[in-house]
Structures are given as C-alpha cells and as structure tokens.
C-alpha cells in the first residue's frame, strides 16, 4: 500500500495545478487518471482548440496549456498512475484507502477529486444486444489485431480511429466501413487512402448507414444497417468495431457517499471539502453557489483545497502562508536560487 499526503483523481488542468500547490506547501501527492495521457478534457476533447480566458495567457490550445502545466510541475517528483480508474474509496481510521482498477492501493488522509465530469469511457453502440458480445465480437478498442486475420470486420465511425483501423485491417481481413454520412472527419490523407482502397475493392464502404440490429446466438452472425430512408442491408460479419469517441461517465464516484447533484459534487467554498472529511472536489466536478466551470476557477479551488490538506497531512504542524517571490523554503522546493 502506497502512502501519500494527498491523492488527486484526475490529471486535467485543475488536478495538475492542485499538485503544484500541494508540492509548494511541502506535501506529497500522486495522481490517478483513467486516460492514457495527462491533460484531461483539454487533451482529449480540444487539444487544438484555442482557449482565451486563462489569466495572463492571451491564447493557448488545450495541448499547450497541458504542456505548460506539466512544465510547471518539473521541479517536483510526482507519480502519475495513468490508465487507472479509481474504483473504491473506503474510510480507515483517520485515512482513506483508495483502490484503483489495476489493484493499486493508496493510504492517504486527503483525496482530491479533480475529475471533470467523470472518467472517459468509449461510446457504445445504441443496441442493447451488443452488450452480450462485448469484448468477444463487439469491440471499442483493439488490443490484438491478429485475431481479425482472415475474418470479416465491420467498422463504424468517421474519425481517425475508424479510418486508421479500416486501412490497417484491410491488409489481412475483409473490411466493411459504415458511417452515418458521406463526409469523414479524419485526416484528409487517411480519407484519401480509404477511398482508394474502396475503389480497389479492399474496403466495402456504406455511408449514410447506421446499425439497426444484430443477429447471433453464441456467436455474432450478421448485422443489419439502415439508412435515413429506412433501406436495410444485412452484412455477414465476425466482428464489429465501434469508434464513436469517448464520453464522460461519473462511474464509481457515485458510490462514495458524497452529496451528488446533476453529476457534480457539493463542496464548501473554504476548503472545497465534500460532506466527507478529507475528500475534496475541485474543478468542473464540484458545485457550490456561483460555481463557474472555468479552468481559472479550478486553479483557485485547487489552491484552497491544497491548504486544507495540510491540516490532515501534518496535524502537528501549523501551515504558514508564504509567497513564491520571497519564501526561501518554497524556492528550495522549486530548486531555484534565493536572492
């Protein structure tokens, strides 16, 4: 079991800056995130979109903001646990014991939820019957492409993941590509490659179609696809792959005994603490009168939550407010020279 002064759930901008604040005041922390990369919504939803309302930064993209925050953390040694979702948070005396999807366990007096709108999960097919075949013949990501060799694979989607896999799998499989409209949003070069493969008969393309039913008892046999004019086609297929991007799900957070209202967690505005002592919520996921879902608000909330953590992490010490411009202790922590 790993011990830390504070565990941050979520590696988006708010989680990152909260880590910075904790380290500045001399507390340890580790960060868990369900995504495979650092940056949260900024990196997953809008890496290329410019943001104009970060104080003192006239314009930056989601990716640039993330990189700047990572750079700001460089003086510190912070452990990231990516690709891990926090499953359980249980009380253990004065501490919380946090368990992640990989089985890792943390013991900490402070848990800071900086989880945005929850964790990112793949969007699934609308048909309930698809659940029965999930991970066997209905998939939303690919771990081992060799299983598709010589098989019929039907891919749904119009973005880069769908197109890249259609191109890749067309080498050794029979590939159907189904998309709800004629335009694709993937990179133009990949779109061109797909059209060439369609012309060469390597990919069968069905545009303006969506899945309407799925047939098979133990094994997937075929699917029906339907267009806006209610014309149906039946496609024999061994696998179906859906690439519809990610959606945010509150997930296990809902089970931790917190006051949750419309997917947000109620907190006070002094410590950003929830109804559970030592569990805080900051950034988009927290809610209080006047809450604004702005990145700058998340920074403020994280700064205050970090100070609140001090009390429980070092109960015998008194927290003293200091400025980074003048504090020798803080400069030492940052590894910069004093005056």
């Amino acid at each position: 079991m790993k011990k830390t002064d504070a565990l941050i759930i979520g590696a988006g901008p708010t989680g990152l800056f909260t880590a910075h604040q904790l380290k500045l005041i001399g507390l340890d922390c580790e960060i868990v995130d369900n995504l495979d990369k650092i940056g949260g919504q900024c990196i997953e939803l809008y890496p290329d979109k410019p943001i104009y309302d970060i104080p003192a930064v006239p314009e930056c993209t989601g990716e640039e903001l993330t990189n700047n925050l990572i750079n700001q953390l460089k003086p510190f040694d912070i452990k990231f646990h990516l690709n891990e979702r926090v499953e359980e948070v249980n009380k253990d005396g004065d501490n919380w014991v946090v368990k992640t999807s990989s089985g890792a366990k943390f013991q900490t007096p402070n848990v800071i939820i900086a989880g945005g709108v929850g964790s990112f999960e793949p969007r699934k097919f609308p048909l309930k019957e698809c659940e029965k075949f999930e991970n066997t013949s209905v998939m939303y990501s690919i771990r081992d492409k060799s299983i598709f060799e010589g098989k019929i694979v039907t891919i749904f989607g119009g973005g880069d993941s769908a197109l890249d896999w259609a191109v890749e799998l067309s080498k050794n499989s029979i590939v159907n590509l189904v998309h709800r409209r004629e335009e694709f949003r993937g990179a133009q070069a990949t779109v061109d490659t797909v059209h060439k493969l369609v012309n060469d008969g390597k990919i069968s393309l069905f545009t303006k179609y969506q899945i309407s039913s799925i047939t098979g008892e133990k094994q997937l046999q075929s699917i029906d696809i339907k267009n806006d004019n209610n014309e149906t086609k039946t496609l024999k297929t061994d696998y179906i792959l859906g690439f519809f991007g990610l959606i945010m799900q509150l997930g296990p957070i809902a089970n931790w005994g917190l006051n949750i209202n419309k997917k947000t967690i109620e907190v006070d505005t002094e410590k950003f603490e929830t109804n559970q002592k030592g569990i805080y919520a900051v950034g988009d996921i927290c809610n209080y009168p006047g809450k604004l879902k702005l990145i700058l608000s998340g920074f403020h909330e994280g700064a205050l939550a970090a100070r609140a953590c001090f009390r429980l992490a070092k109960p015998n010490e008194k927290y003293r407010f200091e400025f980074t411009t003048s504090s020798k202790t803080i400069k030492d922590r940052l590894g910069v020279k004093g005056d």
Partner: protein
Amino acid sequence: MAKITYITHDNKIHTIDVQNGLTVMEGAVQNDIPGIDADCGGGMACATCHVYVNDEWFDRIPTKEDGEEDMLDMAFEPKKNSRLSCQIIVTDELDGLTVSIPTKQG
C-alpha cells in the same frame, strides 16, 4: 423570449419560456428537464446535448457551424434532424420551437 417545447423520451411535454440569448441546451438544464447532459458545458466538444428538431422547424433555425456535424457523429442515434442544443441560440423567431430528447446521450 421564446416558448420552447422539449419532448422527453417518455413523451412528456415540457414547454418553457426561454430568454433570448440562452441556448436551447441552457433552457433545458436551468429548468431541470431531464435527458440533456451537456457534459462540456456548451463547448461543442461532447455531443451530450443532442436533440431531434421537429421537422417543421429544422430548416427555420440557423444552420450548423463547422464542427457540429463532426460531433454529431458521436451522438447517440443521430438522425437527419439531429442538432446539438448548445448550438441553437434562442431568439424571438424561435417561439414555438419543438425539440425531442433522445433516450440517452451516450
């Protein structure tokens, strides 16, 4: 101000006065109409405020901007009359607009 009618997936009809300048998404969220999640808060980045616009209204509301159709690719059961409600800004001209909310947002 416009009267906007939201039909939830259980066929319940909610007619609300929504102020000009708000989006159809905000009208729903602020009035606790279920079924519109709006996870990203109106940034056209999540497709969880997806609605079907009543046929007689679809061509009367301002058309989609770049990017909305891309996001609709990810919506739950998109149709020809699908829109993201965060991209429809309420004006007097929208008085009487009717939108249906899908069974799920994802």
